[in-house]
């Protein structure tokens, strides 16, 4: 009883740490990606992530791509007069020295035309294209349909 527990305790933080490592390209740090499990393949999956721009030049996320989605798009949830809509975001600003979070109820990636259902515990790669910073690919863990936030802390 004691030994497996100890083993798990030793193993877990190390594994979590490895998965939670931010992907750094130039001045951009991409961290805490996550998605929710989908029911079947016909519904869109969602993509959330945190992007920090530590440089002195503004950047913008202009596109996302993933082998699991035929039609990935950037969207923003806007609630106006109590009505929620999801306009397509042509690009998402990542100003110099600031952190932009794609998060529930705000900017998010919408992955349509999925190749298959995304199950909890799976992961898939997403490539983020930035106006100046080039492309960044990160592995996105699929969390429960009921998840509220990333399991990994966002990079500072």
């Amino acid at each position, binding site marked *: 009883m004691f030994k497996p527990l100890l083993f798990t305790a030793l193993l877990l933080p190390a594994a979590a740490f490895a998965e939670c490592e931010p992907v750094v390209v130039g001045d951009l740090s991409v961290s805490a990606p996550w998605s*929710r499990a989908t*029911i079947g393949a*016909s*519904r*869109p*999956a*969602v993509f959330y992530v945190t992007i920090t721009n530590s440089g002195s030049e503004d950047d913008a996320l202009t596109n996302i791509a993933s082998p699991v989605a035929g*039609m990935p798009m950037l*969207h923003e*949830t806007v*609630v106006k007069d*109590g*009505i*929620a*809509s*999801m306009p397509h975001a042509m690009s998402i600003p990542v100003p110099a020295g600031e952190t932009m979070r794609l998060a*529930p*109820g705000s900017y*998010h990636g*919408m992955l*349509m*035309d999925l190749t298959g259902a995304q199950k909890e515990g799976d992961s898939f790669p997403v490539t983020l294209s930035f106006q100046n910073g080039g492309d960044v690919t990160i592995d996105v863990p699929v969390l429960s*349909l*009921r*998840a*509220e936030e990333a399991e990994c802390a966002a990079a500072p």
Partner: protein
Amino acid sequence: MRRRTLIGGLAGTVGAMGFMLGLGAWRSRPVADPKLPLPLSQMDWTLTDHLGATVQPQDWLNLPVMVFFGFTWCPDVCPTTLVDIESWLVELGPEADRLIVALITVDPERDTPEVLADYIGYFDPRMLALTGPAPEIAKAAEAFRVRYEKIPQDEGDYTMNHTAGVFLFRRGGSFAGIIDFHEDRRFAVPKIRRAME
């Protein structure tokens, strides 16, 4: 609001019984504001829940009720709302057992009872999910003062814009308030508790 407090205060001095009667009469007056949901007792719609049972607003008069509109193809707002509601139910504890919680779809074309059962099964088992013929959904939305709109997307796909708030009704069906989508969750549970008093 001040008038209501005054009425309540005066009635309170008369006696608990008088207070309850007075407040009951005050509350049962029809809501005149066309922007606010009708009392459940004045609504007229017939929908089907995810288990196949017929539901009408008059079935809900014995308990406090929490209703929101959404659709299962919705990637962001609806799962977020469902997860929020779950956290409120957890905070309410066993009290929440005497609360009716229902999602009404604005996308009956795709959200059949079977599809809803599949979806709502991932969330708190106390939640109901309702669908029905498009005209009945429209009648329900009208009664709740909910707006929704189909937004075509590429390749024949579509999404829905819809009112995102969560509606609260007291036992007896009078409208008690709305929890807005971006509202601080610390305010949500006290609002629900007040509706359940």
